[in-house]
């Protein structure tokens, strides 16, 4: 099944698609920002009064007066060499900002991705096994309510309960104020990760649990499960042997397809908890018209989402060909 040519073709195809996608994404986002009626200098200085001379200097720094075509070509040429420019608000190369921020976000996203996947899967299996009972109904209602919950509101509530009222966790920031990067202990960092990760996990559970439940019910009403029951298998053993094997793969695939939503949730959660990740940088860049940084983040996020989809595709194509057949027949 897994011949080398097929895999090479798959990877080559994916890389080509990613490149073509990135070119269009870059161009469109660049033009969207370029032709925005928002004055970037005004957005940066805000309400502060500045002299005309000072403003002219800033405009020079921002490159307001360069023609857009030239600007795009300059930027794209540099980007090809791996230089995404200097972030205007952090005054650091964009690649450095993104590297630092994305690592922080990746830890947060990975933690909640894993936790929500496992918890959601278990809840889905329980609900599917006990279809129609009060356990099933409770899990279903929980999922429906969570799917409707605004991410940032849940984050606020958790922050209020655990940080303000109970005082278990610090209120914000990834490290204590006044401590240099080298002196941050693992505990400091870990304590600040828990609440954001918890928020994202709680919300991520809904989709995967409902999906697993549906799939398990489908599997349990199949002929081979009927046959297994006729042979005397029952209870948890039956589900473990025939259910989970069939449900796990589609569920994992779904979890990989959720990268886009995970990123969106991270943006909101980071904002509430002032977690210094890529989402917070994106918001700051957007609000203060830091074009190079915003473009860099858009590219990184597009790659991130693409990566998730590519893995899901890989599972479709190579691990379980049945899924592809089902999709095609719909």
């Amino acid at each position, binding site marked *: 099944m897994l011949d080398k040519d097929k895999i090479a073709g798959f990877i080559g195809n994916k890389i080509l698609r990613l490149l073509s996608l990135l070119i269009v994404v870059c161009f469109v986002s660049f033009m969207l920002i370029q032709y925005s009626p928002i004055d970037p200098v005004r957005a940066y200085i805000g309400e502060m009064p500045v002299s005309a001379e000072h403003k002219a200097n800033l405009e020079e720094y921002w490159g307001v007066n360069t023609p857009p075509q030239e600007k795009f070509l300059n930027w794209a040429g540099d980007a090809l060499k791996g230089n995404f420019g200097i972030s205007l608000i952090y005054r650091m190369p964009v690649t450095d900002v993104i590297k630092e921020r994305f690592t922080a976000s990746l830890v947060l996203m990975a933690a909640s991705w894993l936790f929500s996947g496992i918890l959601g899967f278990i809840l889905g299996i329980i609900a599917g096994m006990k279809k129609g009972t009060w356990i099933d109904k409770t899990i279903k209602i929980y999922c429906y309510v969570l799917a409707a919950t605004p991410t940032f*509101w849940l984050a606020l509530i958790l922050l209020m309960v655990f940080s303000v009222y109970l005082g278990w966790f610090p209120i914000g920031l990834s490290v204590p104020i006044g401590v240099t990067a080298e002196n941050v202990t693992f505990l400091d960092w870990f304590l600040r990760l828990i609440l954001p990760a918890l928020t994202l996990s709680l919300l991520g559970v809904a989709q995967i649990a409902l999906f697993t439940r549906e799939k398990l019910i489908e599997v349990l009403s199949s002929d081979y499960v009927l046959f297994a029951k006729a042979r005397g298998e029952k209870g948890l053993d039956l589900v473990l042997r025939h259910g989970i094997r069939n449900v796990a793969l589609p569920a994992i695939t779904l979890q990989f397809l959720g990268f886009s939503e995970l990123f969106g949730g991270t943006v909101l959660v980071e904002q509430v908890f002032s977690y210094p990740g890529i989402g917070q940088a994106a918001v700051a860049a957007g609000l203060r018209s830091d074009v190079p940084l915003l473009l860099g983040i858009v590219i990184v996020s597009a790659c991130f989402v693409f990566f998730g989809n590519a893995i899901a595709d890989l599972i479709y194509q190579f691990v379980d060909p049945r899924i592809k057949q089902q999709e095609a027949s719909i």
Partner: protein
Amino acid sequence: MSTAVVTVNKGVFRGFNLRQKTLLIIGFTSLLLLAIVISSVEFGDESLHTNFGSKNLNPSPEHPFGTDWMGRDMFIRTLKGLGSSIMIGAFASTISTILAIILGLLSSTGKIADSFIAWLVDLFLSIPHLLLIILISIGFGGGATGVIIGVALTHWTGLTRVVRAEIKQLKTQEYIHISRNLGKSKWWIATKHIFPHLIPQIFLGTILMFPHAILHEASATFLGFGLSPHEPAIGIILSESMKYLSAGYWWLAFFPGLSLLIVVLAFDMIGENLGKLIDPKNAHE
């Protein structure tokens, strides 16, 4: 498809059959949403007068959701915010639906058009949704207009896929072939044979788009890209409440967010139950 509503034949709904119950639930929730919209329009701006004598009050019978730092009644602010959320959601869903219909129909006209639409859908899904809304809203000058356009232009992908798949499936049906062989024009087949089948799907798709549109608008506003601080919006209220968290004014965040949750849930329930009515396969579960 699963249902949001527990359907057991006891309790308040005893004596109704499933169809009656479904209709009742749709009726109640629609009424609730309608009441929110109407009352948010009815309460004029004068009901939001600032009154520093009654600032930061706990929730009480007089002010069910408490008051904020300017003495404004949070209940009325929330209500007005919800009203504007629902109206923005309605507008955005309508635009997205129209886009979805046009693109879905367009994709059925030929192979090139079809792969172009598929590519466009992929392009829109390639950036995280929230980031895309932020980008578009910046492109259109930010503020309320920016976010509304951003939300309206990004929710069509799902429904377009549904319409596209539905048309593809319908086109292979026997009666369409017969109709073509009888010499009917493409337009005639599209309007008489295909479109009527799409209407329920489109209708349902629009309603299920609502919750997403509302939540995305609130999120973008919360992050500071949307409505200005003077306008009533749940996103604004919640981002304002962040400043008062450590002061212990929990009601500033709790009730407005909960109300938003209930509105979103109400739309989900209407969608799910309408789906039950439209799709007879699930009607007898």
